[in-house]
């Protein structure tokens, strides 16, 4: 919101500090100053009034009031001088008092519509409002001053009286400078006996517009239900200087003050004020405790100082620290609101830094522990970590035949589903990166969304060397302390549970694991195995085994035999010279004892045992 430095100055007798100083004081105690700009003999201050204070601070009076508290200076309110001598009247009706809290109006006769004086035009221009004519400009000027939006109607164009009511479905209004607007029963209007004159709190209509020919006017200073105005403004997508103020909780007691100031500036005789105010808003009470305020802030501010600050803010401090809140401060309802007022006015910079006393040590989060361990291992295996969006589009959905959860309001059709897998993205990333790299190895540990939200560890490698990927997977599981892992043709299992899969698409090998299943089986404590210094005896054997005996099983069976250190399968083939139902395999067996060097006899005995175990046949 834009404020004029000179305008603010007009509330004080003594000169204000420089604009930069004002900006700093406001930033540290009230609202952030965005920028300062010099304009001829004035300065623009752009101030981000906080949403909870818009009700009282979308006005120069509001900011001046803040400054008077912060600089501890007396504020001088502009004078009011009115002559309510006209006898004219207009019937006004509020249909529902929860839609319109107050409606104040006044009739002025024999106005001359002309250009505004220069000083008003300048103030409006600085604050970003176009000058229209002397009457409309005064209402806008008073809005900038008090925060109360006003409206002027051509009195002679109103048929019958004014009713504040909900629009009827299908009713229309021709707005100022705009096209026709269709209305419905969720929209509040100001209407005469014929139809709507204005959309309440948002915009006036053409019918009773002030024109050069206007002679008599009626001024409106009203208070509407803020939620209703906010909903309407959003629905119609119309934001005006009036609507942004009415969307906040403006003090309904302000209407009289604003209309009187307007009449003072127009300085023509007016009618008695017509004032409909069904439920007068009175100050309310909040009880606070000095100790609570100080405990929360972590500082000691004396009772006297606290009372001083509250009094300057316009609160009435009664016995036992029961605070009477002025009706303009509708943001203050609980003791914590008062604590904030004390804190910000006293100055957050004066609050010391006190580290909390030690309570208890942080607890290890094992989810994070295992995620970190897995990520580190992937890095050691030369994979680079990538993040994909949680969103995918139709292309991924169709190409990978995925069932997906849909987002109601996606930012684009490329991002309209939640990803149930990260594989499509990893494959895309791999393809993209192949434009710049000879080899790509990437992984992601992230959330995917099926029926449930779950975490997966997945990766992609830019070739079809799936056995190389298998080696990586083995290293990963070893690092996570999992040794019960087994493989089917395309899947990875722990025990009977399928925990992941491997595949090849467009020459890219990918894999994806359910990380929760991995974590469930991961073990952090290892037991030292005796390190043997005795030599390893290596024997290669080739021969036939039953075709349906899986290589995995052969290895695990052999590795269980005493003194076998490890087994590698270095050749498997079927076909020529191999009888059906059989396959030829070549194994390298490493044997080692912890206690002694193995002699030939022992080695032969073990090799025979291996052959028996796997139902071995010599090749013919």
């Amino acid at each position, binding site marked *: 919101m834009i404020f004029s430095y000179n305008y603010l100055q007009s509330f004080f007798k003594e000169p204000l500090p420089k604009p930069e100083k004002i900006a700093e004081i406001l930033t540290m*105690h009230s609202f952030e100053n965005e920028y300062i700009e010099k304009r001829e003999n004035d300065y623009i201050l752009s101030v981000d009034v906080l949403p909870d204070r818009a009700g009282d601070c979308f006005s120069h009076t509001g900011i001046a009031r803040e400054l008077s508290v912060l600089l501890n200076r007396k504020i001088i309110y502009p004078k009011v001088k009115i002559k309510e001598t006209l006898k004219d009247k207009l019937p006004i009706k509020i249909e529902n008092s929860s839609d319109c809290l107050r409606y104040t109006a006044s009739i002025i006769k024999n106005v001359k519509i002309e250009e505004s004086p220069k000083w008003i035009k300048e103030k409006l221009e600085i604050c970003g409002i176009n000058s229209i004519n002397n009457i409309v400009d005064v209402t806008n000027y008073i809005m900038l001053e008090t925060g109360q939006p006003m409206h002027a109607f051509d009195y002679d164009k109103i048929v019958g009286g004014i009713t504040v009511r909900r629009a009827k479905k299908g009713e229309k209004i021709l707005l100022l400078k705009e096209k026709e607007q269709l209305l419905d029963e969720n929209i509040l209007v100001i209407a005469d006996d014929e139809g709507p004159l204005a959309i309440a709190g948002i915009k006036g209509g053409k019918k009773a517009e002030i024109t050069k020919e206007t002679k008599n006017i009626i001024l409106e200073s009203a208070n509407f239900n803020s939620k209703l105005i906010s909903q309407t403004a959003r629905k119609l997508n119309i934001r005006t200087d009036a609507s942004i103020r009415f969307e906040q909780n403006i003090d309904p007691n302000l209407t009289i003050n604003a209309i009187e100031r307007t009449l003072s500036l127009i300085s023509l005789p007016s009618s008695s004020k017509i004032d409909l105010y069904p439920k007068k808003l009175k100050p309310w009470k909040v009880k606070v405790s000095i100790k609570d305020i100080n405990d929360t802030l972590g500082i000691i501010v004396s009772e006297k100082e606290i009372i001083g600050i509250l009094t300057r803010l316009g609160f009435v401090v009664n016995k036992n620290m029961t605070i009477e809140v002025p009706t303009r401060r509708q943001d203050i309802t609980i003791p*914590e609101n008062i604590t904030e007022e004390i804190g910000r006015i006293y100055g*957050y910079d004066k*609050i010391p830094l006190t580290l909390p006393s030690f309570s208890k040590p942080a607890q290890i989060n094992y989810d994070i522990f295992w995620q970190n361990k897995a990520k580190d291992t992937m890095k050691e295996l030369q994979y680079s970590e*990538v993040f*994909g969006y949680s969103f995918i589009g139709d292309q991924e959905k169709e190409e990978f035949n995925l069932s997906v959860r849909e*987002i109601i309001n996606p930012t684009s059709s490329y991002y309209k589903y939640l990803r149930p897998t990260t594989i499509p993205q990893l494959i895309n990333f791999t393809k993209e990166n192949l434009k710049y790299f000879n080899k790509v190895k990437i992984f992601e540990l992230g959330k995917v969304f099926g029926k449930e939200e779950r975490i997966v560890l997945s990766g992609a490698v830019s070739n079809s060397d799936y056995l190389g990927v298998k080696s990586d997977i083995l290293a990963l599981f070893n690092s996570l302390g999992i040794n019960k892992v087994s493989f089917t043709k395309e899947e990875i299992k722990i025990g009977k549970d399928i925990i992941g899969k491997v595949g090849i698409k467009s020459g890219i090998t990918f894999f994806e694991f359910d990380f929760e299943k991995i974590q469930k089986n991961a073990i952090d404590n290892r037991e030292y195995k005796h390190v043997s210094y005795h030599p390893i005896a290596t024997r290669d054997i080739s021969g036939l085994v039953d075709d349906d005996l899986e290589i995995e099983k052969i290895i695990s069976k052999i590795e269980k035999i005493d003194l076998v250190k490890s087994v590698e399968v270095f050749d498997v083939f079927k076909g020529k010279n191999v009888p059906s139902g059989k396959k030829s395999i070549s194994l390298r067996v490493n044997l080692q004892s912890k206690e002694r060097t193995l002699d030939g006899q022992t080695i032969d005995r073990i090799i025979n045992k291996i052959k028996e175990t796997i139902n071995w046949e010599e090749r013919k």
Partner: protein
Amino acid sequence: MDIENIKKEALEKIENIKDKNDLDLFRRDYLGKRGKIRDLFSLVKDLSIEEKKTLGQKINQLAQEIEEIFLLKEKGFKKEKKEEIDLTLPVKMTELGNLHPITQVRREMERIFQLMGFSIVEGPEIENEWYNFDALNIPEGHPARDALSLGKTFYLKGGNVLRTQTSSAQVRYMKKIKPPIKIIVPGRVYRYETTDASHETNFFQLEGLFIDENVSVANLKAVLKKFLEEFFKREVEIRLRPSYFPFTEPSFEVDMVCTVCNGKGCSSCKKTGWVEILGSGMVHPNVIKNGGLDPKKYKGFAFGLSIDRPTMMKYKINDIRLFHSGNLNFLKQF
């Protein structure tokens, strides 16, 4: 055989030795278990004590001399075997794997808060509207609810939303853990945004929450300053400015002195000397109530820190979209 002859013969032999194998043979012949020196000693044992003494000394001396020339020769061989190398030849750098810069920064943040006794917890990314809004004192009809829910929130078919802030985990953990509650919640959050160099729909936050019987703004200031100093590895000045969040009261915006210009004012701090670093405040009593705790007994502070922005500050990254680009030319720099 006499001692002098053995010595002469040994010296001649070793002079002619050309390779390591011959040298090993020499060692075996003279200094080994069945070598010539040993033979000499075995001859001595039948002599008289007097002779034993003089001859013994001589043999010892011979042994010493031969060992010395052997070691000298051996050393010479080792020297000769030095490999020729040339480090000026060009090579390709060894490929390492990389962790995402967000992962690295997130870990650093977690480490620092853990040192201050904050435990790490995580919350779901698909949230129900109650935890995402209502529990945080943003009821239906609240202007902040409209601002968040109508403009910034992704809604899912069949109900629920993608969490708009990690704060949605606050009330979940208040219900789960007894005070003192001292947690951080790092994770991915979602906002409906038109993406550009500084706006993303998927980004990362770290929420902090400390609830106990006596928690103050002074504690908040100290914890945040300590964190920022550890994180930026330098002295840091911070300031609290008034702000507004529905879930905290009082609420603050926390600024730190601009690390680029040290507060003098530059383009990265818009000439103010300060950089907005996080939002924070004292937990609103309604939020404490929603967590099933008594706001008369318990107070607390909460803060929400972006992970993306400090990462961008740290590495001077100018486009937030790079984080989800999967581009290895970017990711391999960290």
